[in-house]
Every structure is written in C-alpha cells, then in structure tokens.
C-alpha cells in the first residue's frame, strides 16, 4: 500500500521533469550514419551499376518486399532490368544490405518517407538508384569476380593469372 503511494508521488513528481519529446518536423533527431533508413542502389567507382541481379536481397528479405528481374547487357554484364521495393512492407531490417555481395544495396539514414497514398511507397529502380558509392568506397565487384564482362577479359581481375591455353601440355 505504501509503495503504491510512493509510486503515485514519484510519478507525480515527473510533472516537473524535463520533457524528452523532440518536436519532430521543427527539430530533427540525430541519425547515425549507419542508421537503417531508406534503401538505395549504389554504383561502383566507375559509375556502373553495382547490382548484378543475384536475387540474394530478395530471398533474404523477411517480408518479401524486394522483387527484381535480371537482364544482361551486350557485354555479358548482368543488371536488374526492374528492381522494385515495396516500402510499405519494408521493415528496415538491413538483411538485404548484409546479403548483398556487391555492396549495391545500402540503407541510408533517411527516414522521411511517409506518403498519403500507399501506392507511392512502391519504389522502382529509377527511384532507388543513386549516383554514388554510398557507404562503401572503392569496391568494384567485377574486379574480383572471375566473369568476363565488357572492358574486363578473363584473367584481368584481381588475383588472377592470364588465361591458360588448353592446347598446350604444360
């Protein structure tokens, strides 16, 4: 009984404490650089799309809100012909970023994504793709992958020897 009265008194005293509320649109809260907000697709240092349409982000997404379809350009470089994120479903868990083998998909500290119309929360590739490298600078997936694409032949990636001639014995 006494503890309840004490509780009442303690709670009452909070009336004179400092407010913790931040008046949001006027004041902005600090978001850490690695805060998991809006998802973007980045480009590699050469300006090419980093995404290679490997579907790993789509499969790891716990709410299945990423859908993409792959295509290949003339030089054998694979890219997503469509890339759609339904942000009205996204839970900003960052799994897609973790799964991405090319640092293409990244979460940036932008949380101001509210819309009056839910349909506007569906982002297509042109809304997602940015002209920058995001958080990871200098990484270029095709520089470490063995695949030959336009501008990089076999054996030209990092840690690769020139192609072997199979017609020789040694």
């Amino acid at each position: 009984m006494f503890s309840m009265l004490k509780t009442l008194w303690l709670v009452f005293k909070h009336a004179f404490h400092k407010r913790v509320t931040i008046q949001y649109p006027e004041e902005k809260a600090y978001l850490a650089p690695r805060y998991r907000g809006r998802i973007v697709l980045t480009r590699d240092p050469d300006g090419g799309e980093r995404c290679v349409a490997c579907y790993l982000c789509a499969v790891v997404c716990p709410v299945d809100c990423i859908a993409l379809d792959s295509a290949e350009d003339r030089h054998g470089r694979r890219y997503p012909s469509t890339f759609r994120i339904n942000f009205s479903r996204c839970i900003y868990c960052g799994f897609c970023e973790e799964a991405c083998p090319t640092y293409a998909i990244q979460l940036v500290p932008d949380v101001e994504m509210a819309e009056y119309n839910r349909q506007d929360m569906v982002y297509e590739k042109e809304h997602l793709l940015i002209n920058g490298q995001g958080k990871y600078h200098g990484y270029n997936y095709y520089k470490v992958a063995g695949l030959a694409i336009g501008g990089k032949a076999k054996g030209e990636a990092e840690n690769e020897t020139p192609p072997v001639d199979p017609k020789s014995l040694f």
Partner: protein
Amino acid sequence: MNPTIQTLLLIQGVLVGLLTLAGLLVWVERRLLALWQDRLGPNRCGPGGILIFVADGIKMFTKEDWIPPGSDKPVFVMAPAIIVVTALIAFTIIPLAPGVSILDLNIGILFFLALSSMGIYSTVLGGWASNNKYSLLGGLRMSAQMFSYEVFMGLSLMGVVILSGSLNLHDIVKAQSGMWFVVPQFLGFLIFLFAGLAETHRLPFDMPEAESELIAGYHTEYSSMKFGMFFVGEYVGVTLISAIIVTLFFGGWQGPLLPPVVWFFLKTMCFILFFILLRAAIPRPRFDQLLAWGWKFVLPVALLNLIATGAIALARGN
C-alpha cells in the same frame, strides 16, 4: 422564471457541460499522462492541442461503422447507448449548488447505486453481442468485477447515510457543514474509491478491456461512434464518481469565498486528476487478485466500518 423552463435549462446546462467536459477530459488525460511521463502529449491541434477532442469527434463520426457479421445486432447496437444513458441519468441527482439539482430525490444514493448497476449491462452485453472470444471474456470479467464491488460500494455508503440520516444528497451535503464525512468515514471513502474505480473500470481496474490480454476486451469489435459512446461513457462515469465522492465525503459545494458551483467543480476536477494520476502510476493487478482483494479484504473492512459507524451512532443516541 417558470420552474419547468428552469429545470429544462438546467438539464441543458448539465448535459452540454458534461459532454464538453467528457470531451475535454480526453485532452486533459493525454496531456497529464504525457506530463507524468516526461512527454509533451497532444500539442498540435488548437492552442496546446486542446482541439484534439474535436478532431477525435470528427474522426469517430466519420469512421466506418462496422457491425461484425455473426454479432447479435440489436444487442450490439444497444450496448454502448446504455452506458452513456445511465451515466447521464445518474447526474440528475448531483447537487451542484444549494438547491440546484435536476432531481431532488429522497433516495438519491439508492438511485445512484441502481443506475451504476444498470450501467454494467453496457459492457457485459457489448462483450457478449460481439461474438468474439476476447469480447466475451471482457464481458465476463466486467460482470464478475461489478458483482463483487457493487456489494461493498453500497456498504461503504451506508456509513455516510447513518451519519447524515438521509438518503437525499442535498441533506448529506448539508450534514457536512461542520465536518466533511471523509474524516469520520475515511475507511468508507477508501472503499468507495476502490469500488468506484472498479465500477467505471478505470485503470488500474480496467480488466474488462485489458489491451495486453484481451486486445480491447468488450469493445474489441466496436468502431466509429459506437466505440465513441463507450469512450464518452467512461469519461462521464469518471466525472460522476468524482462528483459523488465530492458530494458524499468532501462537503459537496461547500467552501468559502467562491461560489458553491465553482467549489463543486474544483473539487470534482481534483478527483478526476487523481484518477488520471492513478492511471499513470499504478499497474494493473491480475484479475484473480482483484477479486480476492475485493472479497477477502475490502468486504470485511466495509462490514466492520458499517458496524462501527452504526455502533457509534447508536451510542451517541441518534
């Protein structure tokens, strides 16, 4: 002025005043809860957010009015009306100032008790008619809770009746001109406070709606203005219980300097604020604890209080 017109005006005044107050209480409660939780609370709509209740009203009137298929339609519709109607009718006997009440009833206390017991049907029937297991559980809880606490709600008031020798609220207020009954009837006051909380199923005794266990209990399936009526009914109920406490234990309108109506209003507001503080501070007990507390502790205390009061009254020789 014609007494009929006078009464009608009074009715009008009380009705408008009460409903406005109930609306304002929405804002008051939110602001106060925020205050005690180091937040700001609603502060966008109107000065200091006071127009939030208008916004709430508009929202409730314009929401989809959904009656779940499988529900008992007439009962479902009737239930929310009961709580508002009974609470409002109970207000007719509250003495606002000397000689000013809509009804001057010689059995005022009993009238209040009768109507408060009627008000329970709202939640019980609402819970049953929704055809939803959580609602039904809420309704069941309400009936058990009410049945337990109404017994000693009546008993706790009997001390006051014995001291004043009347069931008429005006007489009871007048009988407190010397000393507020809260002093001789402190136990009675405490018991009535518990019972009042239980009757209005305010926190911490809001087991019938207990969000964490029953979603929203008896009003899970209610939407739009039907839910709104439960909402308004609850605030009118809080006001009513506060007014009754003030009338029975804290000398009603009596007070120095200020006009009696103001005194009555101020005292009532104090109790309303106290109810809100309770909500902010006290956690909800378990349902079986609530019933055990009621039957095993409060009831014996209420009986003791009654016997002691009666004995003292007899000893003083009326």
